[in-house]
């Protein structure tokens, strides 16, 4: 009985740890995607504003 309880508690501890590792993986994925999205001057905004204004003229 005690053995089964200890096994269950061990499993739960592993479950928490796996979830926490998953969280760290997500945090890392967020950092990597941010670095990939980082590309110096914001060309998209520049294109949108300057061209929009020119079209209105």
């Amino acid at each position, binding site marked *: 009985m005690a053995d089964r309880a200890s096994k269950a508690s061990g499993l739960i501890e592993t479950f928490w740890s796996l979830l926490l590792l998953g969280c*760290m993986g*997500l945090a890392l994925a*967020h*950092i990597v995607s941010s670095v990939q999205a*980082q590309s110096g*001057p914001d*060309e998209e905004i520049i294109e949108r*504003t*300057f061209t929009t204004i020119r079209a209105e003229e």
Partner: protein
Amino acid sequence: MSGQLPILNQPKQSKRRWTTPEILSIVVVIWFVICWCVGRSGSDENLDPFFQRAYPQAERLDRINDAMFRTVGSEDQVLGYVATATASGYGGPVQVAVAVTTEGIIESLAVVEHRETPSFVERVKREKLLDQLVGKKYSDPVSLDADVDAVSGATFTSRALTRSVAQSVRSVASSQLSLEVPAARKGIVFGLPEIVLIALFATAVVQRRFLKGKQRRVVRWITMIVGLVSLGFVFNSPFVLTHINMVLLGYWPDWRTHIYWYILIGGLLMFKARRDWNVYCYDFCPFGAAQDVIGLIGGAKPRRVEWKGLLLWLQRALVVLAISLALIYRNPSFTSFEVFGTMFKLTGSNFQFVLLAIVVLLSLFLYRPWCRYLCPLHKNTMEGLFDRCRKNAKKLWLTVRPKQAA
């Protein structure tokens, strides 16, 4: 008696050898310095191609100075000017380029570069703040308090953009068009967020110094709930890794518009350095309070987890990576993986939304899982590094100058 104890211990301490955590903390600091230097060396952007887009009919672009260009058409006719200016947003500086006519009117403008929290810039783009500024004249107030509507939830970014644009058009008007420019509005921004923050600091200090037992617990819960509602949901201005990166990168915002920033950073550093009190995390951190409240529902408590050492070192590695990239790219906010904005303003990447969902689930059963295993500002990470650096500095001082220290 208690005052004599450190003096008796000091000669002993100075002879102690350096431990592995102490050496590692020095290595991390040196690594951050290297990243800072790498970022600094590669930070010069050539913006000329972007300026040319403002006046495609221009024959040439004459550089007046580093922040201003004259666009010249056929027969040497001046078509207009393009000027750049920078102001600090919530997470870092925002640089704009403004095309100004020879009458001192804003013809077009663009954000050419920013180190601001990406979700705030997205919000400003969506709400078309830039469009409000086109057509304004050098003599207009061009201010959030007068003729420009701030984008809700991105007030600091709106203010930074508006200030940069006003600065650009006025600098062209005064220096190139010899027009009389109205004095720039330099009002001090001091309102409810600053008052609440000061009150929270004061209450936390009173609670720690003068209260005990149940009274202390009650007051702590009050400050936590006030922090959750005000700093979290209402003002959305918690302490984040971005603030530390801003300090490391030397991005000191204008004190008149960022008093909140200075109270937060100054208060934290002052109490930490003078009293070794972390009054923020344990007394009014909004995300800490959110976890506490969720924990009440599920009966959360500190529980054992497997691979504790691995989780600790992964947490540290993640923080070192986030700060290193921020220093290399000279962008304080873009690698910040915290989920505070995701929770309080529903902004962030898909990864952050999933991360938040798991943290909320864990908070039901574990005591403050974010703080203990993920937070970049916790004692395991940046607060710990700060403590270690402080101790190292003291130790170094005792080693170099044992007599004076005694």
